């Protein structure tokens, strides 16, 4: 297991290297002179400009800037923000760091159980009306983009019914709509997958054996069938989480949630590229780590893979 983790971590290096190179290149390629951004409130003070340039290291040759960038990133220093002059990027991100993970975790925490229960219920009621209804609901849930859902929900719950606040973050009722809107498409995806896997598992011979042993149906399904459904589902969780991270950008933007996603978009428009790139780099790293964790957990849970792994030594 240790070997496996080590190998996978090493495999992350080219990915991270690419990410770092890409984000550095992006900073260079993006239009706009950073110093002009910084000076936006001041007139063309050449003295100030050259001092800022030196401070940010922008007068160094490109390769030196790149090496400095890499060095800093590896120690967690993402440089200084362009927009909030003199402020380290980390500072700028600090508040967002407490918001976005909470949003993502809450959405995942809603999506997974909701999806599992819905999907398995559909599978168990195959050829009866709950299944047919659920299939339609799931297609809708999958297809409607989260911002469209947001439009409907906000209109219904906030404006017409006045039950929930429209936007913002910080209290439970402010969190309800964004978490729901973020979670629903993934709940639908998980439901579809679990329905498919559950249907397959129910056809397996060992389920028949469990019944032949005289086990109550409840145990046959939840002890024997369900557990085997979780395993293939696991492999999809990484993809789902990646999607969740991606779409959180949109949800944060429309609900005005002070998270990393919204900040990234705002930074891009404000030409504060160090901040934007730092966020992108972090998201990428996080996504890679999640996939790694999922694969490791998958190994831990399926005894067949554990044996394969030890056999390979």
């Amino acid at each position, binding site marked *: 297991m240790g070997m496996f983790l080590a190998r996978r971590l090493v495999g992350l290096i080219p990915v991270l290297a690419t990410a770092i190179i890409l984000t550095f290149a992006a900073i260079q390629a993006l239009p706009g002179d950073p110093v002009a951004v910084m000076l936006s409130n001041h007139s063309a003070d050449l003295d100030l400009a050259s001092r800022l340039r030196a401070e940010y290291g922008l007068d160094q040759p490109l390769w030196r800037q790149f090496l400095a960038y890499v060095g800093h990133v590896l120690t967690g220093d993402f440089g200084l923000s362009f927009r909030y002059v003199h402020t380290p990027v980390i500072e700028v991100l600090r508040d967002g760091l407490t918001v976005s993970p909470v949003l993502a975790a809450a959405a995942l925490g809603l999506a997974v159980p909701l999806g599992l229960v819905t999907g398995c219920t559909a599978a168990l009621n195959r050829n009866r009306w709950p299944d047919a209804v659920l299939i339609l609901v799931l297609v809708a849930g999958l297809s409607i983009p989260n911002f469209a859902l947001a439009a409907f929900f906000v209109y219904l719950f906030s404006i017409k019914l006045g039950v929930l606040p429209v936007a913002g973050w910080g209290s439970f009722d402010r969190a309800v709509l964004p978490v729901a809107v973020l979670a629903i498409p993934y709940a639908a995806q998980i439901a579809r997958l679990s329905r498919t896997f559950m249907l397959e598992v129910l056809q397996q011979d060992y389920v028949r*054996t469990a019944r*032949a042993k005289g086990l109550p149906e409840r145990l046959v399904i939840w002890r024997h069938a369900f557990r085997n459904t979780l395993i293939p589902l696991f492999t999809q969780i990484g993809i789902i989480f990646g999607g969740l991270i991606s779409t959180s950008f949109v949800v944060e933007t429309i609900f005005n949630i002070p998270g990393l996603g919204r900040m990234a978009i705002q930074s891009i428009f404000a030409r504060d590229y160090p901040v934007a790139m730092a966020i992108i780099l972090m998201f990428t790293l996080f996504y890679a780590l999640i996939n790694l964790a999922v694969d490791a957990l998958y190994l831990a849970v399926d005894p067949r893979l554990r044996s394969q792994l030890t056999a390979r030594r």
Partner: protein
Amino acid sequence: MAPPLLALDSVSVAFRSERRETEVLSRASFAMAPGEIVGVVGESGSGKSVMALAIMRLLGAQGRVSGGRIRFDGQEITTLPEAAMRAIRGRQIGMVFQEPMTSLNPLFTIGYQIAEVLAIHLGLKGAAAERRVVELLAAVGIPSPAERVKAYPHQLSGGMRQRVMLAMAMACGPKLLIADEPTTALDVTIQAQILELLLRLKRDSGTAILLITHDMGVIARMAERVLVVYAGEIVEDAPVRELFARPGHPYTRLLLEAVPTPRQRLARLPVIAGALPPPSALPQGCRFHPRCPDAIQRCRDEAPAAFVLGGGRSARCWRAAELLAAMEGVR
């Protein structure tokens, strides 16, 4: 005479698919005595497995017993409530299936899966259960049973897994063991071992065995009585020696003739012309008549009943008695 352990009375089974219901087993009737080994032989798709599943009431959502009654141990089980049936499954009737490779849950150890049966039916838990599991594993011939308890199914070979299945089926000392093609998926050498094991288990515990197979050799070795199934019907029911010596139904006779012996010198292997008809397209009259060399007009017009031929045997053929007598005469 002791009452039969298992009695099927005109049992029919139908499966539903896309609005249509097709009968796959028609009016099957036979009886098994306690401790008897009855072999059920027939081609794939003949309905023999369906019969076994019907007895266990494991036909699934698409299947149902569409006619007849099944009595087990003095009780009618065809209409028994599910809870009561569950008490019988695994406890009074054990079942072993054809595919040992996929019949065990890959996520649980074999010890756990056997202990499950003990817990559900006998209330055995903890150390007592583990002891019993080790005993059972030893009884089915698994080496180092105390260590193997913690093994996962994928760590065992096919033969070993089938032994585990047997241990699970026999765990609560059932009166009847249904074995649906238990050796078909195994190597020939392992087959012999498993069959030996079955005989030993029956000797030690007095369990009756309903052994389903398509292999006449297995029948010859194991069965005391044989049921021959064709196209959803039991076409012959006879003690094993009688069946092999003087087959009453033309199908049985052709099956036996199809097995080549070393002494024959053949240019081609004998086959039975034609193919097994699907349940949705059964011939009129006797279901075997299109392939039968002894068919007469009556066979085409009327489906024969199962005629009793004396000596505890019966055959579903208009000419059975006549053909048997002819065989006598030849001798």
